[in-house]
Each structure stands twice: as structure tokens, then as C-alpha cells.
């Protein structure tokens, strides 16, 4: 209604925008999942018993989102077997102040109206905000005192980088929601059926890839009359689906992360001179009509329409690309229509291509300064870690609810704090292909996730094509195997900056990313010459990039040995 627009529009537009921003970060923080590595034994008793039960029970408030959880009959996020277990084992009654699937928007309001629960999950920028507003508790000592040995190991597996991202002035202000940084690595997905049809070999170098792209476009193996080279979309710099991160990495350029330059200082990958060469190649391909001219207007879903129609055969992307968007293209009408395979990314020269990865922390858990029992949160965290590292009959309820059986109902998400191992999915790459080849599930170990993957592969091999996406990831030579290969061959380029966001980053990063996207798109679409890149670099530095770099290096000096 018009009036609503006039009156609320002024605030709603602004706030929806506010909401969008956090919804994006809020949503990504909702995607975490249980994983564990090889089982070991229980926590040790520290002087202040970290797992001591509260008697009488205490109450701890939090806020939740419930997306996709299939609750057991009669249970809700407020009343369920998992919450009961926390009360029984630790004497902690968890209470939800509010529940919403638009978590980001609601959280924003809660923070702004100074009405936050005892502990809750936030994004990196919300963490910054809370820290500045002095609303969260310093966890340094509490963590030290109450975290079990297992927990400390869990969080330090990567050498403490992820913890660093939550450490302000040597004080730990939040517990990072750990995850595998390698999940953001890139893979080269190509239609194997097209390669075979045209008699082309697997790509070993970037030059191979360009040749393959050329042949695809020229020979139109899909028979549609117009074939394009790569699948792209408007967020092509770094999106996970149909992006060009792997392509850029092939030129040893790493947009979006911080790398070491020749002098050992930090520089931002986006302005590396190597980017120019990659952009030129892309521009040439665009000029030759090898890209969908509307890619800048489309999201991955829309671009996928072209893939489904058989017009595209190459798509750089993350390891999970077979789930989305490629599943709908690969399996059509109950048949395997397109045989997509993942390959390691390739290089333009004789230096092996390294795949860029990010720190891997999607969200943080913070504790309110006003919380009466901040250490209780550490105990809850300890419990999760305990379950992950040693799943027993007694603690199965935390993963599977009261039935204790894995029903694919995502019940582990009910746990208020959830962490994934910092080397998660690497075991998948190490164990699954072997077990599949040997048809021997006992090689997998006890990790529930890996075991359920194996079962999905079995279903695929028995003819269930809806499981194709799992096959493409878990099979010998699949994306998990390549993830493991990257690790063995030391082909991960990590983000060398893992401190907390500096002031310049907070203020200018959004603007700089936008300018980057605008300029690169113009270059690729041949609206400006590739020399515009040099002008862009200068402008980037002036707009705040220089300051960002200086601040990053200041931090870097404090962590180098």
C-alpha cells in the first residue's frame, strides 16, 4: 500500500537493507553441521572441573533459528530431548528468548535495543559491533579455566588462527564457530561426456582448459546451436557456484584474500598484477562470444538454466557444486543426462596452481557481559566437542535426539553451539574413495557423517540417481579426494590475515568490493580496456585500500615470530 510505503518505506527500506546484510551473514552462520574425527577418550578433570553440573540448575538464555530441522513428534526448539539432556548432564536449562528464521533481522533489533540474551551466535561484523559497544564478555580466562583439554585441542588444530579472528588486543572476546577452511577451495568441474565425445584429454594446464573451452564452443557438443565456455553469474569473483576463483588462482592471482608479497609483507590479492593477465584472457573470451552476455544480470540459479539446457560444459566452483546447482543439470527425467566431473585446478605455467581458501569461520558465539554464568557457555561447548570426539550411547541423544538413531532429521542442529572440525572433510577424502573402491565400509571409522555419505553412494551405485551429487564428491577422484590431494601436495593458499577486522576494513571493505566488481565486470565485458585495471589499482589504494593494507601489516608484524 502506498501509504505504508511512504511512512514505513523510509525505515523499512533502510532496515530491510540492514536486514539483508545480516540475513546474508546470519544465514551463512546457520549452516554448520556435526563432524568428528577419530574417536579418543574423554575429558580430563581439571582443577576447576569444567564439566561440573550446576546444582540447583541455572538458566541460560539464547536465541535460535530452526531452519530445516525435522523435529521429533511433539518436540519443538523450546522443548526437546537435546535441551533436556543439557539440563540433565550439566544442570543448565536453556531458554530461547526468541526464535526466528529471519535470524539476522531480529538479532539486529535485539542488539540495537540493548536486549541481548546470555549467549548467541553472530557474524564477524556483529562481533565487531558488540565489541565496540562493550556488550560482550571477555572470555580469555574463562576459556582457559573451563575448556577441557579436548576442547582446547579442537580449537587449536589450525595453530590458533581461527581463535585469532576473535581476539582483540590479546583478549578472546568470542568463540569462533570453527569449520574447515578448505571448504572454500575451488575445483574445475567439466562435462566428462563432452570431453569423451570430442576426444579431448583431461585438462592438465590452463592452456588445456582454454583449448577445451574453445572446442566446446566451436563444436557445440550439446547440439543446441550455441554453446558457452564457462558458467558464470553476477557474483563471479568468489561465490562457490559458477565463479572464477579457481580460474584466477590458475594465474596465481588470489582476489579477495590476503597473501604475502615478494618482500614478505601482506598484500590484498585483488590488486595483484597477475589479475590483469587473467582478466585479459576473460576479456578475449567474452569478445569471442564465449560467455553468456547476460551473466552479470543473473544469479547462479538463472545461469543454471543454460547448463541444464546443455549449453555449458565447464564450471569452476566449490566441492559441493554437484549438489547445487549441478544436480538438476546432471540428472534429468530420471536419467544421467550430463556427466560432470571435478578436476583439480590447473596452472598457466609450471608452478602448480594453489587454490585460495578463507579462514573458515562463518560465525562466532558471544557471551553477554550481563550473563550471570558465562562459564556455563564453555561447558556447553565442551559437551559438543565431547560428543564429536567420542560418540557413545550415553551422549547419542545430542546428535540424534531421543531415538538415538540417525534419521537424517538434522537434530544435531538443536544444539545451541555447534562446531565443525578444522580439518573436516579431509578424512572424507582420505577414507571414502578407498572404502568405495574396496566396497568395505569398515574402513570408514565411526564418524556418522562419513558413514551416511557412504550409504548415499551405495544407493547411487544401486541406481538411485538422486544421489549422483554424493557420488561426484565422494568417489575416487571426486571432489573430496581432490581436497585431500590439495592437502598432500600443499596446494592451499590460505588467507594470511586472520586478525580481527581493522577499522579501515570495517569502513571501506564493502565499498572496495563493490568497486572491484564493477570494474572487473566492465573489463570482462569489454566495455573498457584491460589497462583500466592499473587505474583501478590506484583508485583502490586511494579509496582506502592503502590504509587497509597498512593496518593489516601492522597486525602481521605482531604475529610474525
Amino acid at each position, binding site marked *: 500500500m*502506498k501509504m505504508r*510505503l*511512504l511512512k514505513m*518505506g*523510509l*525505515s523499512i*527500506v*533502510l*532496515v*530491510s*537493507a*540492514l536486514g*539483508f*546484510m*545480516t540475513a546474508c551473514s546470519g544465514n551463512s552462520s546457520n549452516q554448520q553441521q556435526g563432524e568428528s574425527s577419530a574417536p579418543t577418550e574423554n575429558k580430563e578433570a581439571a582443577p576447576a572441573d569444567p564439566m561440573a553440573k550446576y546444582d540447583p540448575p541455572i538458566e541460560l538464555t539464547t536465541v535460535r533459528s530452526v531452519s530445516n530441522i525435522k523435529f521429533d513428534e511433539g518436540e519443538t526448539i523450546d522443548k526437546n530431548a537435546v535441551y533436556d539432556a543439557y539440563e540433565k548432564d550439566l544442570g543448565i536449562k536453556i531458554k530461547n528468548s526468541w526464535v526466528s528464521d529471519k535470524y539476522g533481522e531480529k538479532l*539486529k533489533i535485539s*542488539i*540495537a*535495543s*540493548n536486549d541481548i540474551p546470555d549467549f548467541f551466535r553472530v557474524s564477524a*561484523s*556483529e562481533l565487531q*559491533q558488540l565489541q*565496540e*559497544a*562493550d*556488550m560482550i564478555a571477555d572470555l580469555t580466562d574463562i576459556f582457559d579455566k573451563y575448556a577441557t583439554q579436548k576442547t582446547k585441542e579442537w580449537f587449536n588444530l589450525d595453530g590458533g588462527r581461527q581463535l585469532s579472528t576473535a581476539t582483540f588486543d590479546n583478549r578472546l572476546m568470542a568463540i569462533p564457530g570453527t569449520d574447515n577452511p578448505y571448504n572454500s577451495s575451488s575445483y574445475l568441474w567439466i562435462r566428462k561426456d563432452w570431453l569423451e565425445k570430442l576426444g579431448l584429454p583431461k585438462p592438465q594446464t590452463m592452456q588445456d582448459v582454454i583449448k577445451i573451452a574453445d572446442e566446446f564452443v566451436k563444436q557445440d557438443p550439446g547440439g543446441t546451436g*550455441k554453446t558457452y565456455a564457462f558458467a558464470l553469474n*553476477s557474483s563471479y569473483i568468489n561465490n562457490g557456484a559458477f565463479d572464477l576463483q579457481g580460474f584466477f588462482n590458475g594465474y596465481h592471482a588470489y582476489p579477495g584474500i590476503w597473501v604475502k608479497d615478494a618482500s614478505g609483507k601482506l598484500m590484498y590479492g585483488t590488486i595483484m598484477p597477475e589479475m590483469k593477465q587473467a582478466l585479459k584472457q576473460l576479456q578475449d573470451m567474452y569478445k569471442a562470444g564465449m560467455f553468456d*552476455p*547476460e551473466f*552479470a*544480470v*543473473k544469479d547462479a540459479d*538463472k545461469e543454471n538454466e543454460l547448463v541444464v539446457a546443455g549449453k555449458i560444459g565447464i564450471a569452476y566452483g566449490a566441492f559441493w557444486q554437484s549438489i547445487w546447482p549441478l544436480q538438476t543439470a546432471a540428472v534429468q527425467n530420471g536419467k544421467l543426462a550430463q556427466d560432470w566431473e571435478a578436476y583439480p585446478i590447473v596452472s598457466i605455467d609450471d608452478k602448480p596452481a594453489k587454490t585460495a581458501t578463507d579462514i573458515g569461520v562463518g560465525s562466532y558465539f558471544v557471551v553477554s557481559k550481563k550473563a550471570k554464568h558465562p562459564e556455563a557457555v564453555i561447558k556447553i561447548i565442551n559437551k559438543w566437542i565431547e560428543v564429536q570426539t567420542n560418540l557413545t550411547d550415553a551422549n547419542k541423544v545430542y546428535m540424534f535426539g531421543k531415538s538415538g538413531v540417525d534419521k537424517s532429521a538434522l537434530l544435531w542442529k538443536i544444539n545451541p553451539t555447534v562446531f565443525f572440525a578444522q580439518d573436516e572433510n579431509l578424512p572424507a577424502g582420505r577414507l571414502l574413495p578407498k572404502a568405495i573402491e574396496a566396497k568395505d565400509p569398515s574402513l570408514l571409522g565411526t564418524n556418522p557423517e562419513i558413514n551416511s555419505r557412504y550409504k548415499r553412494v551405495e544407493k547411487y551405485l544401486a541406481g538411485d540417481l538422486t544421489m549422483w551429487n554424493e557420488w561426484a564428491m565422494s568417489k575416487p577422484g571426486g571432489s573430496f579426494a581432490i581436497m585431500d590431494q590439495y592437502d598432500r601436495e600443499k596446494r592451499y593458499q590460505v588467507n594470511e590475515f586472520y586478525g580481527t577486522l581493522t577499522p579501515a576494513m570495517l569502513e571501506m*571493505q*564493502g*565499498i572496495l568490493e*563493490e*568497486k572491484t*566488481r*564493477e570494474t572487473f*565486470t*566492465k573489463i570482462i*565485458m569489454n*566495455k573498457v580496456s584491460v589497462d583500466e585495471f592499473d587505474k583501478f589499482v590506484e583508485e583502490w589504494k586511494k*579509496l582506502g585500500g592503502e590504509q587497509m593494507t597498512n593496518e593489516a601489516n601492522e597486525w602481521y608484524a605482531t604475529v610474525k615470530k
Partner: protein
Amino acid sequence: MQKFLRSERLPLHLMLLPSLAILAVYSYWPMAGIMIAFEKYIPTKGLFGSPWVGLRNFKYLFYLPDTQRVIINTLSIASMKIVAGLIVPIVIALLLNEVRKSMFKRAFQTLVYLPHFLSWVILGGILIDLLSPSNGLVNQALGVFGIQPIFFLGDNNWFQFILVSSDVWKEFGFNTIVYLAALTGINPTLYEAASIDGANRLRQAWHVTMPGIMPIAILMVTLSIGNVLNAGFDQIFNLYSTPVYESGDIIDTLVYRLGILQAQYGLATAVGLLKSTVSLILIACSYFLAYRFANYRIF
């Protein structure tokens, strides 16, 4: 005081009381929040405890790159929408008024109100398909006339036109209803008189109908002028892309893209305040202009 209580006007004041009470509590009381535009707002310190930074938020807004571009686009797109949004519904209301069969009228009114219910998320997808240069219906139709495919959504020369026409298409149903209601309020004896004086339908439309709906038309325009700085974030967000930033980027999309609003309450409020002030000035001007020149009070 006695005189007041016994005056004829007392009931009028009383009638306004409940509305004023609501407005006082839910519109005016929160207006104090405008202060945030001049502060560095910290939730724990609240409205009155947060540090005062004066005009710093406003200065920051003007230092952003592309500020000039987005302001021009915002004004241009919004004014075109206002003009088109005025003319089209009036014309359609007039045409509909000529229709005898009330079934047809009713059916028409129901159908054209439908697009209002679609969200721009969905419409964006439909438009991208329709206007696609490779296989969109519009370009296919153009091809029949031998015209080369036009990438409407990627061309700065066409983008604003697409924005305005699709917006009119979506919302004209709503406006037509308003004008139709106004038309039914016109005294039919006026038409009879005009007809007796020899005026044909067209002249009747000009001399009877138009003046009859003029008040509503002026009102609708004035109120939409107040909206001019909004220009339709939802729509543009779902239709624009990098190649058309030059013509399509408006204040709200720029601000959104730059993530400025993330937790920077002061900036968000400052943008809102700026827009409000401009709207106020524009509406006040229209009000006084209409009063001076047409002796007509818009509200």
C-alpha cells in the same frame, strides 16, 4: 473555556482525539530517534547517552564515490514514475468509465489489480526472461520486424524506461481504483447539462470528468512527490546489474551495496532524515503552489 466547551467545534476536536493519541505515541514519540543521525549510537548508552558527532554522518555520505550519479538517477527515475503513474491510471479510468457492461468493468478491475501482489523477486525473474536478448519474447517479437535484439536490462539507454514501464504495469491497477472511485462521485447531472449544451463524449470528458478528478489527481501527485527519493529499491535491486549502474543505481541501492547500513545506525538515520527533509520541502512547495494558483488545498 466555557465558550470552548460549548462551542460547535468541540465535537470536531474530540473526533480527532483518538487519532492524535495514537500518532503521538507511535509516530511522534519515536521521532526523537532522529537524534541518532547526529550521534554515534551505542545501544548500551541509548538515545541520550551516545556521543554527539554533529554532521559527521552527513559528511560521510557526501564523500562516498558515485553520490552524484545516484542522486541524479534517483530523481530522474522517480519523477518519470510519478508522471507515468499519474497519466496512465487516469487514462485507463476514463476509458473504463466509457464501458457499459458492469461485468466487464468488474472483471477488468480485479484483473489489473493482480500484478500488485507479485513481489519484485518473482517479477525480476520473469522480466529477465521476457527481455532476454537471446530468447526473450520481446526480442523475438522485434525480430519479426527485422529489429536486432536489444539487451534491455544491460543497456543504459533502455534501463530506466524498463523500470518505469514495469512499475506502472504493476501498480496502475491500484491507482485506477482510486480514480474510478472519484469518477463515480462526479454528479451525473453535470454530464446531462453538458450533453444538452451539445458537448460530445470527448468534450464532456475534458470539461466535466477532468475537473472532477483533478482534486484527487493533485493529491496523488503530491503524495507521490513526497516519495520521490525512494524510487523503488525492491524493483531496482532485483533488476539491476553492474553494466547498468550508471543509469539504474539509486541512493538506496548504493547504500545497500556498500553495506553502509550494517550497524551504522547514525548513517542509516541520516539518510532517512535527508530523504524526509527533501520530501517535506517538495510537498510543502506543491501544497502552496496549488493553493496560490488553483486556490486548492491539497489537504
